[in-house]
Structure formats: structure tokens, C-alpha cells
């Protein structure tokens, strides 16, 4: 198991390296540059060229990339042009809120997705299955940004149950309860699609397992039905579901970009949206690297979990 874990971790290094190359190239290809964003309407070709030289952006792309990698290896992700502060400081400050939001959303979707899938599978074609099936279909097809605005209008502006956005009271004294109040709507918004996908997948996987011989054998031996479902069937179905949970973690991190924008959640996603608009290359680079690292880490954990559930995988 340990060798497998190390092998998976080692594979993460080239992946992260590849991510940085792609991000660097993509941003370099987009028209407009940081000098323009800094100078705004007062940018002239001359002043842009001068500022680009000051920022070191007139050097060839490979040279800039290598310089960045060299610094990154020592833990220096550069300085944000737009915010005038070290990229690492900004990314770390923004990572916490994103982790809280993503963890809450993923937790909700795993809890409700698995439950919905199991309930549907156990009563296949019954009314529970049909109702849950319809709800999951709706969930898969609702765009999060639309759902988010709807929830804000209804539950925040209309009923005043939850704050419309932000991560906590502005003036301190909020504590954990205040954080949770601010967390409910964005977490639910972000969780809906992932819940629906997990629900549909769990149902399919459960149906598949429930039809297999060992389940029939278990029932024939007189194992009580509850145990058949939760131990024999679910544990085996999870082998198919767990990698998708890993994928959904990626989806949740990606979805955080617009959910954070709609709910003013001060996370990495919103930071990236603003940084791209400002052509803040190093901040985008740092932010994407952080998200990618997180995603890779989740994948490693997922793989390990899967290996634990199904010892054949490790081989």
C-alpha cells in the first residue's frame, strides 16, 4: 500500500509541471497584457512597452517560464502585478475559504447522493425511485449560477433567512455559527449537480451489484436485508462510486469559480476570475497551481481509498 501511495504521489509531479506549462502558454496567447491592465485607459503603446520592460515581460516566453519555475521551486511564486503583493500570500489567504466551501459541498453531495442512489436502487421502479430519479435529473440540469441567484432572491432577499453573500459578519463577533449561516446557500448551490451525478451513479452501481450471485447467496443464507444492502452491496458498489467522488471534488473546485462570484465568497475561484480580467499572469498561475495541487491530492486520496476497498487495484 505504501509503495502504491508513493508511486501515485510521484506521478503528481509531472502533472503539476504540465499544468503550469499549459497555464503559462494559454495566458501568453490571450490578447492584452498586465501593463495594459495596470495603465487602463491611459495606456499608450509606448507606456505599455516601457512597463512591460519594467515587469520583465519583454523577455522571451521560455526565459520567463524558466525564471518562474526556478523561483517557484524555492517557494517564491512571484508578485501579483495587480495587487502589489506576493502571490503566495494572496493564494494562501484565498485557499481557506475555498476549502471550507468545497468540503461542505462535497460532504453534502456524498451524503445525499449515496442515500438517494441506494434508496432508488432498493426500490427500483417504485415511487421513491421515480421521484428521486426526477429530482436528480432536475439537479443535473440546473446551472449553478442560476440556482444560486434564485436561492438568493428567494431565501435571502425575500425571506431574509440567510445572508446574500460573503463569508461572515464584516465586523467580527460572528464565530462558527455566523460562518455556517453564510455557508448554507453557496454549499447547497455547489452541491446540487454533484449530488445528482453521484445519486444516479450510485443507483446504477447498486442495481448492478444487487443482481450478482454473492448477493443472492447472502440473502439465501438468511443475512438480514439491511446488512445485505449496507455491507455486501454498498461496499462493492462504492468501488465504482469512489473514483467519481474524486471527479466530483474536481467539479466542485471548478464550480466554486462562479458560485464564489455569485455569493461573494472570498475564495480562490473568485480571485482567479478577477486575476484573469487583469491579466495578472503570476496570480493566475499561482492560483491554478494551488487548485491543481489540491485536485491531484484528492485524486491520490481517491485512488488510495479505492485500493483499500478493492485490493485488486493495487497490483
Amino acid at each position, binding site marked *: 500500500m505504501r509503495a502504491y501511495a508513493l508511486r501515485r504521489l510521484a506521478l503528481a509531479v509531472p502533472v503539476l509541471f504540465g499544468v503550469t506549462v499549459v497555464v503559462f502558454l494559454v495566458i501568453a496567447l490571450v*490578447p*492584452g*497584457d498586465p501593463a*495594459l*491592465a*495596470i*495603465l*487602463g*485607459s*491611459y*495606456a*499608450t*503603446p*509606448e*507606456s*505599455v512597452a516601457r*512597463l512591460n520592460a*519594467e515587469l520583465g515581460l519583454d523577455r522571451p516566453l521560455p526565459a520567463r517560464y524558466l525564471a518562474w519555475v526556478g523561483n517557484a521551486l524555492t517557494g517564491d511564486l512571484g508578485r501579483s502585478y*495587480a*495587487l*502589489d503583493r506576493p502571490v503566495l500570500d*494572496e493564494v494562501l489567504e*484565498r485557499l481557506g475559504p475555498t476549502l471550507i466551501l468545497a468540503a461542505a459541498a462535497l460532504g453534502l453531495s456524498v*451524503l*445525499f447522493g449515496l*442515500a438517494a442512489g*441506494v434508496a432508488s436502487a432498493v426500490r427500483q421502479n417504485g415511487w421513491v425511485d421515480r421521484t428521486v430519479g426526477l429530482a436528480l435529473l432536475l439537479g443535473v440540469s440546473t446551472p449553478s449560477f442560476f440556482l444560486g*441567484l434564485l436561492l*438568493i*432572491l428567494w431565501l*435571502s*432577499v425575500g425571506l*431574509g*433567512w*440567510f*445572508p*446574500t*453573500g*460573503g*463569508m461572515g459578519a*464584516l*465586523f467580527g463577533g460572528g464565530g462558527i*455559527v455566523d460562518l455556517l*449561516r453564510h455557508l*448554507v446557500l453557496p454549499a447547497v448551490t455547489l452541491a446540487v449537480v454533484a449530488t445528482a451525478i453521484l445519486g444516479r451513479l450510485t443507483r446504477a452501481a447498486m442495481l448492478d451489484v444487487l443482481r450478482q450471485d454473492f448477493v443472492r447467496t447472502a440473502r439465501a443464507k438468511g443475512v438480514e436485508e*439491511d446488512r445485505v*444492502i*449496507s455491507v455486501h452491496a454498498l461496499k462493492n458498489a462504492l468501488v465504482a462510486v469512489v473514483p467519481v467522488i474524486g471527479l466530483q471534488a474536481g467539479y466542485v473546485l471548478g464550480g466554486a469559480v462562479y458560485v464564489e*462570484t*455569485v455569493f*461573494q*465568497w*472570498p*475564495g480562490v475561484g*473568485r*480571485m482567479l*476570475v*478577477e486575476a484573469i*480580467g487583469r*491579466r495578472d499572469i503570476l496570480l493566475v498561475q499561482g492560483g491554478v497551481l494551488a487548485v491543481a495541487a489540491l485536485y491531484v491530492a484528492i485524486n491520490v486520496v481517491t485512488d488510495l481509498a479505492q485500493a483499500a476497498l478493492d485490493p485488486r487495484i493495487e497490483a
Partner: protein
Amino acid sequence: MGRAATGFTICVFGLVLGVVALVVTGPGHSATPRDTLVVGQMAEPKSLDPATVTAANDFRILANLFEGLARFRPGSLEPAPALAESWEISDGGRAYTFHLRPNVRFHDGTAFDAEAVKFNLARLLDPKHPSADAGPFPLAFFLAPVTAVEVVDPLTVRLRLDQPYAPLLAHLAYPIGYMVSPTAAKAAGKAFGRAPVGTGPFRFKRWESGRQVALVRNESYWGDKPSLSRIAFRPIPDANARASEMLAGGLDLMVEVPPDQLASFRDPARFALHEAPAPHLWFLILNAAEGPLRDVRVRRAVNLAINKRTIVENVLSNAATVPAGPISPAFGAAHDPTLEPYPYDPERARALIREAGAEGATLTLLAAEGGSGMLEPLAMATAIQADLARVGLKAVIETFEWNAYLARVNGGLKGAGMAEMAWATNDPDTLPYLALRAEAAADKGGFNAGGFSDPELDRLIDAAREETDGQARAGLYRRIDRLVHDAAPWAFVASAKQSAVTARGVEGLTLEPSSLLELKGVRKR
């Protein structure tokens, strides 16, 4: 019921109970503290160093932290005393002697004196100054004619200029002229933008990325102390989210209200809607250097063909007015009040186009997808395209993201016939000087992207720049206003009003023509 199902039910029950508890124990509609003003802004500021920023969004915060030697007289764009109590202009407009206000201290206790003024100007204008590495300072060129700063005595400072330069006072009243604490700027270097120290009525408290910039009252302010003890500027880039937050009561003041949401706030029991003119101009740069628009008749025809009134009413929900020329009425006497906007007259436009032999011409119209001051650039481009089609001109729209757009347009129109542009300025000199002189052509590094050239206009602009007598100077700008209107290097389409919404109980807010949001006179009931 099975064990698993029971476990799940308990989980869900617990969650639901938790959420209900959150709702029940929560404060209901969010309310802001009584002594605190919460302001909803469009974006996170880039920096709070007044010398490094160019956006009105950032200026709104700075106007409460900092002051310049001069400020704009309330309700106008006329320079009035601030950190300088008075000044004399001598040497034919080449020397400005400022008498500084005594007993003024920066928030960190540093004395505000002639040495501080000298430090500030040197930081901006001398690239080798030890504190110049906090730059780039994109607007420092506004003060570039200053060649020397002489400390006459601790409370008297003299600025020497290499040429008479009448816009100086207006720029000293603008954020580029705001005085920063030399002690703090030296110590912080590049980090000053995140730990600003000025002399203003509010002090910087903290900046939480993506959440708020918090200011607190400056208890040792030299003037009338503000009634508010705190201000929080919250960045809410999404317009819908910002409006929701205002409706839910989480904001006391919201600026730049999207035109299509004005209606939501027309509820006097809960909100007050503020509107004021601003020196903003939205125009089409017309390519006066090549193609059919070289002919002034075709340029006038474009002005006549565009139904400005309809654009302002339907696309901009009346959040703008129709301008007549390049000098905004917000500049007071510099604007020619007898000048009327081009009427909507497709008949005359068609006739002029026929006369010029430009019927059926195809013109590329460069349009931005968004951007500072650009209002609704795509919808406006489409409306203009339809208007031009009615008089026999075919406009082909090319759209760009804002950053890419600036790069394309500021390099010169080159092949394109028209380009959208918007400016908001603080002195009548700025726009004509930067964007209409022959010397300001794009290939010479200026903003005259259409390549318009008129020696008479250049002469007037230079004369107005050197004229230090206010009335004579205003007279020159009135002539510029009319000349540019007639020569039509641009199509004058819209001039946006400033807008803001305040929650009930917020009093004393006035929107200034400068768009600087001074909050020291604001109270909450």
C-alpha cells in the same frame, strides 16, 4: 427500518435541525451597525497607494483617506484650498507658491509640511527617487511640467514649472496629487498600497482580500470630524449580487447602479436614489485619417444618423444624457451652454452622405465587450449599426475583450472606420489634449486614434493650457467645444450620470462632479 436508513435519517434530521437553528437564531435581514457605513463597490481596489491607481472604483476609497494641496469646491470641478490654505501664481504661470495649513499630521503622526510635499512630488516625478519603486505611477504625467520643488519655509512650498500649465491645480486635487506620509511610504515601499497613510478624515484599518477594506474615523483630523466611526468598502463584482445585497439590507450605499436595476430601488420608504452629472463622455472615434470619414460631411452624417435619445432612453434606461461636444457641462463655464447636440436627422445624414459620394460604404466598428466607463458597449454598437444602415452606411462590428480592445484602439484605428471609447476626466484640458491634438496621434504615443488634425484646435488647446486666468481659460474651452462639435472627429453619443443608492437613514451624501466619493459629511440615523 434498517440500521443504515436510520443512520441516514438521523444525519439528515440533524442537518435540517442545524439549518433551522441557524435561521431562527440569525439576525433576520442583515443589518449594518449604526455607526458604520457599508459601501458596495464594483471591484476590489488594485492598490490604496493613490499614485498607482487610475480607476474611479479605487478613487472612492482614497478620497476618504487622503487629501491634496487643493480639492474640488463642492458641486464643481473648480480647485479650492485643502492642505494648502492659499496659493499665488507667479512668473507668468511658471511658479506656484502654496501656503500650507498648519498643525496637520498624517495618520502615523508625521507632520505635514513643505518637506512632505517635496517628498511626494519627487516620489512621483523622479524615477531615481528611493521611493519611486512603489510605481509605476500611470498618471504622474499629469504633474510632469513640475521641474523643481522649493521648500521656502516649513509651511511654504514653491513649485517651478517648465511651462505655464493651468490644469496643475485640478490635478493636485485629484488622487495623483494626494499627499502620502513620507515616513510610511519610505518604510513600506511597494507595500504602501496595502497600508496607506494619509491626512484624510478616515484612517486605514484593514484590507481583507475579497471581503472588505475597512476605514475608521481619524480622531485627530484637522477639520470637522466625521460622524461615522467606520466605513467598510465591500467588493461585489457581480451586479446582480450587489443589488441583492442592497435589497437585503447588507449595504448602506451602493455606487454605479446598473441601469436595468434602477427600478428596484425606486422605493422611497426604503431607499434614496442619487443621480448627478459627471464629466463622462461616451463617443465613437471616427477615422479622420483614411476612408470615407476623412470627409467632414460623412462625420457629421454619422452624428446626425445616430438616434442618441433612443439609445439613452432604451439601452441606458435614462442613466445618461446626450452630449453636444467634448467639454462636459460638469466643467461649468468651460462648457458652451448654447451648443446643442446633433439632432437625430436621418434625412440630412443621407443627403450629406450622397453629397460626399459615400453611399453604401462599409465601415468597421470596433466595440468592446465591457470596460471602465463603457456602459453597454455591445448593445450600443448594435443600435448604432442599425441607425447607420438606415442612412446607407454598412457597419461591421468587431468585438474585443476590454484589455485587448485598448491595445487595438490605442494603437490607432488602422483600417477600421469607428471605435467606441469612453473617458471621465477632471479638467477640461485632459481629453482634448490627450486625444484630439495632431501631436497626440496614435503613432506618436497619444490617444488620438482617429488621426484628427486641425491646427486651429491645437493652437486653442495650447493657449487654454497656458492661460491662468480662470475666465479667459473657460472662454478658450468654449471655443474648443464648438470647434470640435462642428468638425465632428467623434460621434458624441452619451454622457453617463453618476448614480448611487442609499438605504433609509443614510443622510448627507452628495455626488460630486469629480466622482470622488467623500463620506466625511455622511450620517446615519
